[in-house]
């Protein structure tokens, strides 16, 4: 028995293991610390732990590490993806602080953080998997706790409905996903991504069916049309912090994982999945927009907006190039900041007043100028207005798709940005232009929430202008070798 093997595993799986350690530590803190200490410090500890995980594992080596005979692959790019998710999760935790520590949720506080950490772990596995077994375990680890989280508000009148909708959809789509994997296995005799790529006969109907099933499984998590229908209901009914988590982290992780599956497993037949995605992207963007146009509930509204954003994200997958990969990761990073800024504002206001309707936001600027500005920046960034980060991410992702020749697709996507601009502006209009007899009173944001918002706003403002982020990601994607 060679202890250095353990060390190797530690080194190669650093993010995952660190996260596990953090989870266990958190668990013990929750178990043994006094309630008064926890009231004060628990969120802080969770954030610090996650930040520590990020800090300790954020220096990815330059080479690729494989473990367990190639079932687990850690490359600089995957580490970067995990760090992106970590940043988002920290922001979500910051924003969740006030809600989680409120009277109703305080007793179950520990569950929230640990489940979040577990799902994050599952996502790590998804991203780093080189084998469908790991992928499947990661996928389920990432999605099952979320069902519990969505149903977290036990007393809430909508939370249980959301939980059920999420869970049944998730289980159903994972069954389909498994079916797809079994077909793949039947065709190629292996579940290793690399082996499948070499062994599978791509021109059989079974292969196509398997591909479609697998796309369904992951498309569910990404909420691509027509697998998106749960999204709005779950977002609306779930606790805002969980919704935020779902809309950015879970979606981001799925997109990252999707990339590896498609780029590795299905690399022999890119034109097949590109063809499928072509249609899905158009449907996703368009339907997401069309539904978003008439939403009155802001969380539901953001659900549909996130659906259409998923369509834009997929453009990076379509590109099937290093540039596309860079643009996609960058897009998700920017999307995390923008969407979380929006959710941060919504969470704050919902927590203090219980209002989430767009009409409730009328005249918000008069009473809460800073929150309104943050929300406006978020909306502009989501809509892709310069000089905010969203513009750059959109530009790069379009550029990558055009580079691969998808002019028409990008054109349709661009036309859709006009519709999306319309509904994003509706929010801005409500806050700045519309009059209101009794607007939401002036809200004092707690220090966690404020920190979260400030970081988000800073991200929105600076991510685009600071080109080093994109440059760094671009350097990483070139090492992937697509």
């Amino acid at each position: 028995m060679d202890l250095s093997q353990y060390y190797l595993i530690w080194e190669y799986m650093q993010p995952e293991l660190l996260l596990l350690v953090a989870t266990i530590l958190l668990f013990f803190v929750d178990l043994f610390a006094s309630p008064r200490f926890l009231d004060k410090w628990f969120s802080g500890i969770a954030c610090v732990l996650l930040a520590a995980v990020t800090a300790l594992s954020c220096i990815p080596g330059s080479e690729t590490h494989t473990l367990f005979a190639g079932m687990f692959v850690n490359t600089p790019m995957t580490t970067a993806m995990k760090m992106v998710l970590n940043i988002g999760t920290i922001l979500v935790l910051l924003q969740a602080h006030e809600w989680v520590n409120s009277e109703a949720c305080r007793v179950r506080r520990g569950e929230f953080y640990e489940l979040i950490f577990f799902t994050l772990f599952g996502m790590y596995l998804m991203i780093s998997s080189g084998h469908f077994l790991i992928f499947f375990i990661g996928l389920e680890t990432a999605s099952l706790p979320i069902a519990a989280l969505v149903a977290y508000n036990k007393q809430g009148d909508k939370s249980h409905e959301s939980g059920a909708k999420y869970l049944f959809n998730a289980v159903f789509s994972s069954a389909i996903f498994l079916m797809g994997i079994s077909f793949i296995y039947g065709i190629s005799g292996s579940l290793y991504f690399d082996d499948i790529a070499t062994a599978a006969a791509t021109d059989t109907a079974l292969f196509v069916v398997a591909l479609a099933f697998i796309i369904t499984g992951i498309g569910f998590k990404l909420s691509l049309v027509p697998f998106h229908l749960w999204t709005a209901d779950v977002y609306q009914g779930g606790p805002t912090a969980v919704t935020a988590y779902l809309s950015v982290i879970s979606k981001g992780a799925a997109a990252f994982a999707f990339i590896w599956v498609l780029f590795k497993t299905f690399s022999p037949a890119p034109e097949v999945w590109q063809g499928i995605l072509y249609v899905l992207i158009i449907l996703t963007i368009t339907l997401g927009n069309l539904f978003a146009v008439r939403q009155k509930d802001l969380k539901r509204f953001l659900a549909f907006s996130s659906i259409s954003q998923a369509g834009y994200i997929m453009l990076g997958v379509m590109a099937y190039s290093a540039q596309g990969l860079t643009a996609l990761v960058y897009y998700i990073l920017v999307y995390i900041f923008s969407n979380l800024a929006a959710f941060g504002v919504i969470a704050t206001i919902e927590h203090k007043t219980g209002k989430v309707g767009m009409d409730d936001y009328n005249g918000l600027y008069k009473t809460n100028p800073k929150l309104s500005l943050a929300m406006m920046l978020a909306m502009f960034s989501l809509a892709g207005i310069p000089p905010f980060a969203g513009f750059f991410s959109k530009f790069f992702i379009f550029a990558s798709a055009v580079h691969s020749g998808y002019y028409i697709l990008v054109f349709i996507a661009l036309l859709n940005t006009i519709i999306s601009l319309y509904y994003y502006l509706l929010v801005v209009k409500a806050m700045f232009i519309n009059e209101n007899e009794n607007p939401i009173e002036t809200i004092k944001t707690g220090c966690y929430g404020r920190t979260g918002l400030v970081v988000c706003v800073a991200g929105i403002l600076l991510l685009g202008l600071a080109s080093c982020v994109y440059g760094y990601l671009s350097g990483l994607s070139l090492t992937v070798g697509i």
Partner: protein
Amino acid sequence: MEIPMIYYIVLSLVMFFAGVYGFITRKNMLMMLISIELMLNAVDINFAVFNRFLFPGQMEGMIFSIFAIAIAAAETAIAIAIIINIYRHIRNIDADNLDDMKY
């Protein structure tokens, strides 16, 4: 006499789509859960059969199906928990009653 592989495959497909059908038509959420199990088990059969017939030299499919069964159990546990929660709220477990949020 060896039963050819195709019979197993047909069986698993029938099970799978029976599960799909049951999931879509049954109103009771427990029944829906059972349908899901049917679908998952169909997948397990697939894995086992492919492994046994096509790639007899390895155990990948078998192992996978074991994992799948385990995870299915976890799924069921969470599902039951949520169903209980629903029952507490609305005093029944009909899927039709869960449509407060729509459009």
